C-alpha cells in the first residue's frame, strides 16, 4: 500500500531527525549568536594622545595621577646636556566620575599656571547591534596664570589671568592597530600680549595611534592653527612619541616643539620650530589608582 509506505518513511525521517539532533549546537537554540551591542574601547592607552585629550575616558572611580615633563631644546647642545638641564613640568589629577564624564586639575611650572577641565563623551563608538562608527566628546577647560603682574603699577584685573578653551573630539578606532581623531579647538584669552594676537584662536588638531605591540604604541599629535599671530614667532605644535605600558604605569616618551602642557599654552606660545631642530624631549607618566572599587 502506497500510503502506508509514505507514513513509514515519514516516521523514519522523524526518528532520524531526533537522533541527529543529539549532536546539535545547543547554544543555537537560545539564540546565542545574536549580535549584541558592544562598545569599542581602548582606542588610546590613556586619556591623552600626547598633549591633547584623547577619545578615551578614565573609568569611573579611577584617579589618574599624571606627571608631565618637558626638557629644554635638544639643539642647545652638550652644555645644556641636550636640554635635559632645563625641565618644566605639569602635575595633574584626573578623575573619572561616570563612564562618560571626567574632570581634571593640573598645575604647570611654566607661567605658574593652574588649569582645570571637564570632559564629556556624547557618543561612544560601538559595534554589533546599533552600530556607531565614531566617538564624539566635548572638552571645556580654563587656565589661570599665577605669575606676578609684570607691571603692578597699572590696574590689573583678575580676569586677565584667565583663559578658556573648548574642544570637540571626533574619533574612531579604525582597527586594533590604528585609532584616529580630529579635534577642532577654540582658545579664548582674556588678555593677549599684543594687538596682533587674536583673543579667540581657532585650531584643528589631529591625533593618531598606531599600536606596535601589546604594550607599545606610536602616537602623533598635531594642531593646525587657523588664525595665529603671524608676527610673534609661534608655530603649530607637533608631538610624536611612544606610549609604553608597564603594568600599572603608562610612560609616554616623545619629541615635541610644544611649549607648555595645557591647550592654551601649547597653541598660543609654542615658539619652537621643528624645521630648525628646536625639539624638546619630554615624557609623561600616568599612574592610575582605583579609588572606588566595583563590587563583584
Amino acid at each position, binding site marked *: 500500500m502506497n500510503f*502506508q509506505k509514505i*507514513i513509514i518513511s515519514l*516516521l523514519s525521517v*522523524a526518528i532520524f531527525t531526533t537522533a541527529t539532533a543529539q549532536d546539535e549546537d*545547543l547554544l543555537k537554540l*537560545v539564540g546565542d549568536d545574536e549580535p549584541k551591542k558592544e562598545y569599542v574601547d581602548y582606542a588610546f592607552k590613556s586619556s591623552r594622545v600626547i598633549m591633547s585629550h584623547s577619545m578615551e575616558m578614565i573609568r569611573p572611580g579611577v584617579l589618574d595621577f599624571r606627571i608631565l615633563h618637558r626638557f629644554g631644546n635638544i639643539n642647545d647642545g652638550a652644555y645644556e646636556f641636550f636640554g635635559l638641564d632645563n625641565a618644566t613640568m605639569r602635575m595633574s589629577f584626573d578623575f573619572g566620575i561616570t563612564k562618560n564624564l571626567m574632570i581634571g586639575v593640573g598645575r604647570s611650572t611654566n607661567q605658574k599656571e593652574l588649569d582645570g577641565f571637564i570632559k564629556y563623551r556624547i557618543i561612544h563608538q560601538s559595534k554589533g547591534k546599533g552600530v556607531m562608527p565614531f566617538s564624539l566628546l566635548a572638552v571645556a577647560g580654563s587656565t589661570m596664570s599665577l605669575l606676578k603682574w609684570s607691571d603692578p603699577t597699572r590696574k590689573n584685573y583678575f580676569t586677565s589671568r584667565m583663559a578658556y578653551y573648548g574642544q570637540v573630539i571626533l574619533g574612531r578606532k579604525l582597527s586594533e592597530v590604528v585609532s584616529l581623531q580630529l579635534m577642532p579647538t577654540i582658545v579664548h584669552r582674556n588678555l593677549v600680549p599684543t594687538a596682533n594676537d587674536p583673543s579667540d584662536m581657532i585650531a584643528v588638531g589631529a591625533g593618531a595611534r598606531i599600536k606596535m605591540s*601589546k604594550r607599545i604604541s606610536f602616537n602623533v599629535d598635531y594642531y593646525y592653527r587657523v588664525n595665529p599671530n603671524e608676527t610673534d614667532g609661534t608655530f603649530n605644535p607637533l608631538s610624536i612619541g611612544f606610549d609604553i605600558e608597564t*603594568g600599572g604605569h603608562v610612560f609616554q616618551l616623545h619629541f615635541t616643539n610644544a611649549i607648555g602642557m595645557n591647550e592654551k599654552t601649547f597653541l598660543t606660545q609654542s615658539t619652537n620650530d621643528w624645521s630648525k631642530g628646536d625639539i624638546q624631549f619630554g615624557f609623561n607618566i600616568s599612574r592610575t589608582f582605583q579609588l572606588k*572599587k566595583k563590587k563583584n
Partner: protein
Amino acid sequence: MKKLLFFAAISVITISAAAQDKYFTKNGKILFKCTKSPLEKIEASNKGTTCVLDSKTGNMQFAVLMKGFEFERALMQEHFNENYVESHKFPKAEFKGQISNNSEINYTKDGTYAAKVKGQLTIHGVTKPVETTGTVTVKNGKIIAVADFTVQVSDYNISIPSLVSDKISNTVNINVDCNLEPLKS
C-alpha cells in the same frame, strides 16, 4: 493498519513536542581567581553566561563573552582584554561537554546530585579537555548547576610577562553557577 500508523506518527510528534528536556540560562555566573600575591586581588566575574543543558543526553554547553568579565580595578580589566585574552580576536570562551553520569540524575525529582562533567573548553582560541565534578540541584522544575575547576593559563597560549609573574598565578580557579530554566521550544 492505516489508522494505527497514523496514531503512531501523531504520538511520536506529540512526545517530542511535550518533552521539556532542555534547560537554559543567559545570565549564569562565572567567577575566576588568579591571585598570587595577597596584595593584589585578581578576580573577575561575568553575569552573562549562556548555558544550555539537555537533560536527556546530559550534553551541556556554555558560552561567555570575555569582555563581560568585570574586575574590581578598571586597569586590570583593560589588561585582561587587551594583553591577556585578546578579546577583540577571541571574543568568546566556550565549553562543550557532557555530564557523564547523567543517568544517575533524576530531573523529575527535587534533590542535589553529583555530576561528573567532561568536555572541551575553548579560551583564547585554544581548545583543551577539562573534567570536573559539580552538582546539579533540581528544584521545582528548575536546575541549579554549580562547578569548580582549575585551568592553567599557559595551556591556553596566554603568556604572563615576568614583570608581573609574582602577581598573576598561572593556575586559575573558575567557579560556575547557573540557574537553568526549562527551554520552551
